[in-house]
């Protein structure tokens, strides 16, 4: 568990009662200055319940205190943007009346405490964000970050986290179509669980939390409210367990995907019948957050009677009801006169839905306990008036340029290089510096084949199939390409077009240079879309970082956001939604800055995507873009302008039907990209490496760097491709041709594709020691 003040309520507790004599503002996690701000906003002293509501709503998780200023600098507009950040999820316009709604979110702390339930409820939360918009979820993806795979703890975490995702998503019936998995030491005690959901909605069915109108009835529907994770996401959670009465403890949130499925169907039915004017899911800070946000965004007030809230536990105090984070609950605002219809839909689906209050015109959130008014607050004060901290005031790079060596991270390894981001800022890409050991010497040369098998079978590179085969990838019958390709491809029933989805992160680069890592993640996610022939439309970002109150943490956050901005600007992409998770640390050391980027793209003709194939014997294999690459984790500058030209080239080539296959050069470099290409259909490739001054053969084989796509084209299309590459000013190297049953990279290695298969397929189960006992028994 992290030492952060923002920890999940799973591990920590809320005072069993709010003692008016204690220093309540501090007890609920507010600083003295924040307490002063509350008092001046209200012009009075809040009561304990009101303090608790402020504590929850002004927590980092709910209020984005340390990130809001920065997030405002992200590009969020564009012709395609239908809904930008601020709603439950963002949306892009697919044309012809359909919107694509999507968002990524973290569930890191709950997953550290109870990985199975934490991951499961993470999926549940992101699904609710999507269907709260009136959209039907059509796909989920996940990005997972664990410690080294040989640690028993990591193995248990992998089983539990993947088990939780599989348990929840499969039950609700949403296909899991892609993801990302990293194994790095910084995540050993603080795994990251990021989930993304994509939904589709007709324009007229889009719902907003901002459209509640005075006089409308407010319903709470779904699971009964218990003492689950009370104020878990807020600073209230800074209390130690143990001191109190056991029965008053907040308990681990347990997900019930069956209720989620009912909620999903009921909500969509209500939207279809146009019986509701606003819908809001209950997440962090539960009813407090949902009610104040709806009221604040709608410019109204709301009256809620906690006595009417159905409860699972007896003796719950109003603050427990208001702050409970029980899963699978929604706030539904009925259209006036449609209350019976709303209730009928709840009944049909066997859901417990109760009218707990109404929307009011005066902007006051009034909480009653029967006849007694127990809290009365301006919703905007709760939802919008939290302080914003300008972290640039204390942000400081961990090294200065003269002393790059000082930035060795807590995990050892290569010195950080700050040159890369400066190169990007200056708009000039610089050549990769020679990494030590960049060349293969004598004996090593003969070992190139072994090195390839080792890399291909390493946890970093090997096939994730053992994980994703436990997810239903096909339910919904829209999955054209599921996990295993560069990006997922989904059709839209009844239309010729389709979407592509990818999720990626580059923590090993961000560790040295958060700007570069974030920019590379945006570039990789969108490049993966392009490898399927899809034009990127927009991204969602899920930022996972350490402590923003420390100079280095603040700097990392700043640089991460700047990296996303720069990449989005260069690629012409908006950010439509996102999430920030701070205070992630392992044994006191912050995790590497981890920007998970989810990207959505469009295919004009879904049947005409770039296939996940090796190609045919005789096809040519080429490398387009940049050939610069270095050891894993050693940053290579990204030339964002080249990245944009490369993506444009591949889309243009695909538009002209020149591309048989494409694959992004990612983990493990060019040799691995060729191996993965050969593995698709089990056909060999015979290639030679492009010779580049200053690039050793080891780097040429296994070096990693952005902006490289391996293309397979029929020989008769080579000239046309070359012409396009020239027009777009993208370097292109011919590597070789498809054919035979060996992967041959002359003169360094020649391996049977069958041997590659064994390494690639068997690598992850072996790394995770899957033969032996795991807590599989759930």
């Amino acid at each position, binding site marked *: 568990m992290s030492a952060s003040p923002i920890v999940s309520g799973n591990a920590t507790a809320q005072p069993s009662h709010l003692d008016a004599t204690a220093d309540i503002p501090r007890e609920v996690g507010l600083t003295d200055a924040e307490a002063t701000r509350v008092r001046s906003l209200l012009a009075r002293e809040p009561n304990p319940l009101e303090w608790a509501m402020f504590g929850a709503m002004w927590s980092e998780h709910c209020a984005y205190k340390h990130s809001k200023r920065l997030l405002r600098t992200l590009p969020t507009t564009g012709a395609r943007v239908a809904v930008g950040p601020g709603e439950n999820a963002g949306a892009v316009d697919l044309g012809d009346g359909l919107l694509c709604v999507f968002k990524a979110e973290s569930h890191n702390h709950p997953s550290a405490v109870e990985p199975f339930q934490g991951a499961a409820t993470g999926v549940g939360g992101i699904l609710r964000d999507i269907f709260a918009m009136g959209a039907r979820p059509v796909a989920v993806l996940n990005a997972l970050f664990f410690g080294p795979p040989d640690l028993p703890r990591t193995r248990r975490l992998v089983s539990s986290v993947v088990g939780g995702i599989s348990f929840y998503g499969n039950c609700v019936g949403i296909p899991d179509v892609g993801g990302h998995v990293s194994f790095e030491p910084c995540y050993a005690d603080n795994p990251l669980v990021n989930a993304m959901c994509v939904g589709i909605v007709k324009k007229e069915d889009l719902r907003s939390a901002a459209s509640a109108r005075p006089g409308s009835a407010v319903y709470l529907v779904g699971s009964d409210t218990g003492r689950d994770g009370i104020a878990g996401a807020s600073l209230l959670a800074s209390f130690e367990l143990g001191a109190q009465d056991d029965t008053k403890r907040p308990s681990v949130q347990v997900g019930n995907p069956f209720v989620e499925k009912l909620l999903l169907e009921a909500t969509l039915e209500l939207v279809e019948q146009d019986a509701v004017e606003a819908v809001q899911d209950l997440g962090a800070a539960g009813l407090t957050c949902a009610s104040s946000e709806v009221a604040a965004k709608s410019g109204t007030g709301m009256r809620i009677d906690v006595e009417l809230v159905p409860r699972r536990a007896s003796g719950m105090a109003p603050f427990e009801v208001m702050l409970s984070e029980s899963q699978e609950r929604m706030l539904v605002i009925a259209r006036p006169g449609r209350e019976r219809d709303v209730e009928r839909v709840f009944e049909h689906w066997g859901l417990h839905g109760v009218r707990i209050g109404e929307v009011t015109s005066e902007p006051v959130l009034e909480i009653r306990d029967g006849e007694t008014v127990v809290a009365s607050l301006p919703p905007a004060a709760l939802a919008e008036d939290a302080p914003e901290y300008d972290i640039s005031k204390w942000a400081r790079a961990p090294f200065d340029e003269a002393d790059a060596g000082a930035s060795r991270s807590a995990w050892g390894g290569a010195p950080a290089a700050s040159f890369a981001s400066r190169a990007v800022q200056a708009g000039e890409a610089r050549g990769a510096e020679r990494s030590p050991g960049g060349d293969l010497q004598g004996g090593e040369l003969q070992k190139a084949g072994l090195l390839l098998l080792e890399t291909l079978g390493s946890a970093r590179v090997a096939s994730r199939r053992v994980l994703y085969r436990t997810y239903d990838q096909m339910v919904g019958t829209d*999955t*054209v390409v599921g996990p295993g390709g560069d990006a997922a491809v989904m059709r839209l029933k009844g239309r010729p077009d389709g979407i592509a989805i990818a999720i990626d992160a580059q923590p090993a680069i961000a560790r040295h240079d958060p700007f570069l890592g974030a920019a590379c993640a945006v570039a990789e996610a969108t490049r993966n879309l392009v490898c399927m022939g899809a034009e990127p439309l927009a991204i969602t970002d899920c930022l996972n970082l350490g402590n923003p109150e420390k100079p280095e943490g603040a700097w990392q956050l700043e640089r991460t956001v700047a990296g996303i901005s720069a990449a989005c600007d260069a690629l012409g992409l908006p950010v439509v939604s996102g999430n920030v998770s701070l205070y992630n640390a392992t044994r006191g050391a912050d995790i590497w800055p981890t920007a998970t980027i989810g990207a959505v793209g469009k295919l004009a003709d879904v049947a005409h995507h770039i296939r996940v194939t090796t190609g045919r014997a005789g096809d040519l294999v080429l490398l387009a873009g940049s050939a610069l690459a270095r050891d894993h984790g050693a940053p290579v500058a990204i030339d964002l302008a080249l990245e944009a030209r490369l993506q444009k080239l591949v889309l243009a080539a695909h538009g002209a039907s020149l591309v048989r296959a494409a694959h992004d050069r990612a983990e493990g470099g060019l040799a691995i990209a060729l191996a993965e290409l050969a593995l698709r259909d089990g056909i060999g490739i015979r290639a030679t490496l492009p010779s580049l001054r200053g690039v050793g053969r080891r780097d040429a084989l296994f070096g990693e760097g952005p902006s490289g796509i391996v293309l397979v084209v029929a020989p008769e299309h080579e000239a046309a491709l070359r012409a396009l590459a020239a027009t777009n000013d993208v370097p292109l190297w011919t590597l070789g041709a498809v054919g035979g049953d060996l992967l041959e990279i002359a003169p360094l290695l020649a391996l049977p594709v069958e041997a590659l298969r064994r390494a690639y397929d068997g690598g992850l189960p072996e790394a995770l020691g899957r033969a032996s006992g795991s807590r599989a028994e759930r």
Partner: protein
Amino acid sequence: MRVAILRYPGTWSERDFAHAFSVLGVEHEIVWHEDADLRRFDAAVVPGGFTYGDYLRAGAIAKLSPATAELRRAADEGMPILASCNGFQIVCEAGLLPGALVRNTGLEFRCDWVTMRVESDATPFTAGALGELLRMPIAHGEGCWVADPRTLARVEDEGLVALRYVDARGSATPEGNPNGSLGNIAGVRNPQGNVVGLMPHPERCVEPLLGGSDGIRMLGWLAASARPALSTIS
């Protein structure tokens, strides 16, 4: 031909079946389990999903639905009924088909493509396909078909095995078996042949765009009256 597609709380393949039938040109309607009156229909599908969250045992709570009596009546009257995935679990729980489905031997949910051999063509869903190999997706965590030795012997002796998992070479080996089912049994039928249950998902493979179209072998006959629609699929 008009097909009822049953929907229980937690069902999720009903929309996929509806889409598949639209593609095949089969008239169909999604029917809420509590209102199920199958007399209006010529055939019925009990689709996949996680009815009642699969709590207790997959299909156990759904069998208490009023739809069970209706399914039994329709089955007795000879109505063709196809039960896939969770539907298979429900009809086994309800006693319409022999055996039961328990946790996969690997204890993991498994989504993949499998190959099955048609072992009985005495059902409308497999008529004329004896010995054929069908490739279809699976997606289940409790698809291991089990029975006590007596029941198993009866199922084998009376030719009630409708489909068997096979490997790439067409043999019913452990490698071909995704979930540990006894005798590699993927699907069974009732003695009359009108009720067929299977774990795989024929509705997920009626369009080549989605990776295969062997589901047409199983569902296509329902479109007999609308054959022309079939030729437009490709």
